[in-house]
């Protein structure tokens, strides 16, 4: 590399930093600042009526996994908390799987349309974003409730005699989240499939590969970054979902988001709430790390 080239590169790096400075400042002040407060609060003592007392304590962090039995004073594994964590992770994984199962054929369909039509199909995918999340969730509620659209139609058609009860169950939360997050799966999948060279398909068939083999050995490895990006985009917000479990789940079975809210409200244990928020953040970061690992491997198959 010549000295001229080097100085040119340095200049472009500096300009890059300068250009991104406003965004970085905003990120630091608006994201890291509040996060630091949350981190500090997680190491304090809860106040009598909410808020915190400025005394160092690890109780918030210990309280994530362990709980002192209020009646006999022994410390046990916090069964209630683990149930909530497990429900959140399970529902988020299920949501990711379902959105993939629905999103992959959709994205494939869009990517294989003539270029002039693709914009229209993509535009249709983004339409749900025009409406507020809360309103979309209430709309789902209207469809699946006992006397809602789905049950009325099914009963009217004589297919069932008793309404199918979905509302206020984990299934309702699952359906709601899959509906809400589906576009987040379709868009990155489309981006990946769009770049896919269809000639590779013909090459695969020419080499006597079956349709399934082409899917497994040709398509999936190449669109893998899109699959991972889509899965992350769905999994992360699902894990912290608050509105959907609250509206569709009927509030009976909490997810992590609702559990954190409880600590800042009626639970009056802000440090535990703060520690739970940080724990959620750590889970999300772990998921992102796996993503970065997996996607760099995918882009660089020959080492």
């Amino acid at each position: 590399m010549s000295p001229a080239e080097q100085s040119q590169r340095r200049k472009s790096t500096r300009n890059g930093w300068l250009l991104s400075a406003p965004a970085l400042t905003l990120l630091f002040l608006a994201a890291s600042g509040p996060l630091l407060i949350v981190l500090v609060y997680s190491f304090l003592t809860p106040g009598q009526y909410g808020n915190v007392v400025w005394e160092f304590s690890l109780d918030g962090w210990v309280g994530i996994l362990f709980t002192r039995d209020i009646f006999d004073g022994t410390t046990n594994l916090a069964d209630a908390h683990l149930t909530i964590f497990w429900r959140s992770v399970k529902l988020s994984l299920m949501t990711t799987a379902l959105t993939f199962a629905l999103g992959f054929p959709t994205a494939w369909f869009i990517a294989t349309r003539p270029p002039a039509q693709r914009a229209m199909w993509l535009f249709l995918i983004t339409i749900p974003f025009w409406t507020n999340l809360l309103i979309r969730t209430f709309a789902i509620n209207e469809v699946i409730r006992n006397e809602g659209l789905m049950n009325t139609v099914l009963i009217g058609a004589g297919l069932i005699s008793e309404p199918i009860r979905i509302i206020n169950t984990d299934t309702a939360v699952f359906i709601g989240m899959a509906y809400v997050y589906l576009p987040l799966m379709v868009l990155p999948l489309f981006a990946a499939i769009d770049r896919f060279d269809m000639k590779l398909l013909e090459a695969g068939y020419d080499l006597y590969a079956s349709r399934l083999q082409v899917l497994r050995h040709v398509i999936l490895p190449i669109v893998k970054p899109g699959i991972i990006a889509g899965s992350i985009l769905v999994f992360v917000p699902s894990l912290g979902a608050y509105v959907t479990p609250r509206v569709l789940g009927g509030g009976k079975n909490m997810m992590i988001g609702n559990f954190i809210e409880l600590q800042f409200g009626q639970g009056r244990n802000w440090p535990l709430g703060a520690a739970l928020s940080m724990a959620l953040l750590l889970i999300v970061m772990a998921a992102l790390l796996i993503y970065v690992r997996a996607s760099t491997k995918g882009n660089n198959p020959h080492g």
Partner: protein
Amino acid sequence: MKCTLTALAFLAATTSLAQAEGVLNLYNWGNYTGPDLLAKFEAETGIKVTVTDYDSNDTALAKIEAGGHGFDLVVPSTNYVPIFVEKGLAVELDLTKLPNHTNIAPEWMDVAWDQGRTHSIPWQWGSIGLSVNTAVYTGDINTSSIFLDVPDELKGKINVVPEMTDVVNLAVMYVGGEPCTEDTEVLKKARDVLLAAKPHWISMDYGATEKLSNNDWAASVNWNGSSMRARLANDTVAHGYPKEGYPIFMDSVMLLADARNVDQAYTFMNFIMEPENAAMISAFARYNNGIAGSDAFMPEDMKAAPEVVTPDEHKAAGTFLPTCSPTAQQYMAAIWTELMK
């Protein structure tokens, strides 16, 4: 010409007057403040009221304690009034600015949580009980066993409002304890009863008025005013007063220490203690208001409503919730977490 000028001058005068009167920020429970009341207040005083909603006392307390909220008035329940005072979040009222203070009904004047009403004035009061669709369940509805030992007809059809203090204390009274108890034997029994009953509940949610009206739920632990609104929409809904004991609440207006529109806040507080205006509050949310003489202005359908006028045989079971001690609060929170998992 002269006429037009006068009109213009008058217009200018009134608009500047309206601007000078300013604004007021009211922080109140959701679905609790009637728009017609605010319209009347604005028409009379020129003060524009902005209402922000909350859904629990703890939310309100947390937000106000955090500061920077911009609210002038808040409407906490009985057991939270002393907390707002103790923490210095609400200030003592200057009664000379509230000539209508004498309109407070005698039984609501010297209350345990605010002797002489020097810190809070009545907004509305009511009680928590059970709303039951009598077409679905025909048995006795004046008992907490409706939700703690759910009858077969109501299994999978009953909702419980996620209001920790009310629900845990209903269960405590059901097993024979006192509200805010620290007796672990009683609390353990209450917990067991709640945990055993939970699988039969459909949900733990707010919004009982709508969901009882449209038959999503056949019953709910619910407040009396909400019960009445549900009955008006669906006449098979009736309100039960649990004979094992039920909490009575009063939500009271308090002036915040960091209020910026203090004069407007006094004007508003004085305004709502006018019997006619207090009746407007009740006409919207369907609860009683604690202002003497407001009965005359109440809507006809409330004057004999069994939800609003507690029948004599059920009066004795009602009790005011004291401000629970932090220890009692921790017990309740632990039971609640186990219940909500």
